[in-house]
């Protein structure tokens, strides 16, 4: 009984301790600016989200996302300008297609579909940025730690 109790509390503590690692790629022209706006409007979202600035969503190589999961990321989100608004006119169309493919492949190898996401956030949508991030982090919390793809060498 007491043993079980201690195990339970340990598990609970571990669950409370666990902080997801979330990588957000944001295109420089819309989403990064949207994130800035979320900041200047003081619209909070969890600190687990760390943003990497890229010129355009189409700059994100699937390798970057695989690398993130390999290094223990629990979720990866990719934000770009709304379709039709890409600063480079067509970049986000490539992103959309490329990521559909990548995400279904990730799903196939066991990284749940909900751990990856593409969202369109414009420079004016600070509120939307914060909502999207809150949403995404809540989802990752539901899914728990990502254990499927990890570089075993790193764990040792």
């Amino acid at each position: 009984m007491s043993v079980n109790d201690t195990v339970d509390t340990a598990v609970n503590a571990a669950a409370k301790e666990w902080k997801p690692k979330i990588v957000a790629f944001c295109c420089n022209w819309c989403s990064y600016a949207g994130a800035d706006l979320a900041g200047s409007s003081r619209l909070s979202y969890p600190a687990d989200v760390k943003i990497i600035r890229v010129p355009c969503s189409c700059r994100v190589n699937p390798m970057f996302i695989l690398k993130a999961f390999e290094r223990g990321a629990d979720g990866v989100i990719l934000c770009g300008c709304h379709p039709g608004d890409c600063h480079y006119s067509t970049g986000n169309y490539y992103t959309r297609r490329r990521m559909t493919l990548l995400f279904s492949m990730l799903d196939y190898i066991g990284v749940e579909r909900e751990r990856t996401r593409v969202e369109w956030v414009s420079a004016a949508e600070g509120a939307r940025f914060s909502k999207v991030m809150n949403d995404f982090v809540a989802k990752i919390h539901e899914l728990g730690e990502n254990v499927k793809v990890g570089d075993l060498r790193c764990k040792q």
Partner: protein
Amino acid sequence: MHKIGVFVCWCGSNIAATVDIDRVVAEAKVQPGVVFAKDYQYMCSEAGQNIIKDAIKEYGLTGIVVCSCSPRMHEATFRKAASQAGLNPFMVEIANIREHCSWIHKDKEEGTEKACVLMRAAVAKVTLNTPLKAGESKVVKRALVIGGGIAGIQTALDIADAGFPVDIVEKNATIGGRMAQLDKTFPTLDCSSCILTPKMVEAKSNENIRLITYAEVEEVSGFVGSFKAKIRKKARYVKEDVCTGCGVCMSKCPSKKGLNEFNMGLNNRPAIYIPFAQAIPNVAVIDSTQCIKLNTGKCGLCEKVCTAKAIDYTQQDEFIEEEYGAIVMATGFRPIDASKFDEYSYSTCKDVVTSLELERIMNAAGPTGGVLLRPSDGKHPHSIVFIQCVGSRDVSGRGKPYCSKICCMYTAKHAMLIRDKYPDVEVHVFYIDVRTPGKNFDEFYRRAAEQYDVDYIKGQVGKVWEEDGHLVVRGVDLIANEQIILNTDMVVLATAIEPDPTARKVANMLTASIDTNDFITEAHPKLRPVESPTAGIFLSGVCQGPKDIPETVSQAGAAASKVIGLLCKDKLTTNPCVAHSDELLCNGCSCCEKVCPYGAISYDTHLINDHGVKETRRVALVNEALCQGCGACTVVCPSGAMDLKGFSNKQIMAEVEAICL
């Protein structure tokens, strides 16, 4: 050996209140490569920048990270400071610990932790930065204006006034565009050609302007500062420099079946014609589909009567090739095809006309000499019904979802002019809303409704049909909430306007983006309204969105000033964060070329020394002046040869790793 300096800004209490600055500094000091870390209250201030400059000099820093506000705010500031201290400005990275951290997190522990991670990622990135140098490209001091309507003319005049040569390419035989077809202009009711023709003459006589009429741009290559264009000058079969515009050929030409485009097809013109009396250039042109000589070899009357010997049936299309520093799109608009709206019987009843047709009927130089007559029987009408928003604000898919902006005003103008000239004519106007947000516009509309007794009916028309020689209009009056049936003599449709059909082709050629309605997209809807997102391409007039004449003219001037600003420069600096390909890895597959939105990638065969093995290979070459640095090519490259400077694969990977540590 890296020597990285980290500078942490408090931003007063903006950052310091939620981020433990000391901890970030301490953490920074233990990062690999970091030799110096310091905090200050306001890094962007003069004193803060001096801290950075001094440290660069004292420690011989090879790269710096500034943990501060968004790079969109002060990246340029810190880059400049770095370069003043002798460090390449692209060896600077910013960790955004204000907008992305301190401002959104309340918990100091959480905020500090995140700030440390962001700092770590920036340090990881900066150790992989390479010094970059902004390139330079030349500026050809000549501009091209595509379209010779009022927008194109005004843009060209303004550019020419600043002393730069301009070419206007107009697809029709004369410049003047839609404005030349108008009778009067709102809200002042001055005659359209009286204000337009002097400008046309000015364009013709200005020594900096070259008019290339009856011509189309066929090919454009190059980039901002040095575009190359190939222009097809269609055969007119009349020598432009010889024809005196006397018009004798027009009166003698036996083929008189061609529809007069200038009069919207309301009457006919001969096969050899001058579009209208004030045409510039005032030179005849032969319609090759109508000319008997060109089609059957017989006739040749015009050649016989031409005393100037200007006719040349053997003329061929000519090509002009020229270089330009900037290109202005002024392709204009046309009214949509009203026959799509069958309920108004436009295609079956002659007395249902569009507003532009009415404009010609009202014009003294038009088919009726300016007398208002019914097209069907040439009788004087006693009642006219105007229907607004034909095809505008239409989400059914038949028309256009947008408001064409000018229709409310020109309908008020037509109604007022008719009531003024023919007080016996009853005028009814069906409208959804009357939109008059311009200087003196609402006063104008009210004058039509109040002073001239124009009957404005709020509601739409369901059907128009012909009955016993007159027209019947069935509509609703939304205010009285009843159906109304009107007997009338003429119906005028205020048709929506759409971009000229050539706009799409031209935009594709220039890689200027267009929206779903084929209007050209501006670089920023508010802050850069006359530029296209493609550098060096500018927008003038309705090709960007519906607008009236004053707006068109002001936009034309704005576009011209942007062009002048560009042409004044001797050299352009290019963004150094561009793609480049590793010759050793490139296999010449062309994948990158296909995704490049700027046509910046080409191929060449190079002699490659691959670890001692010499061979010639087809490899990709990036034109650094054209590349805008989106990175699309880097991802499609199957061999990993393409990379983006400033955002290289390694750099981004390093950031990912630092975040996931």
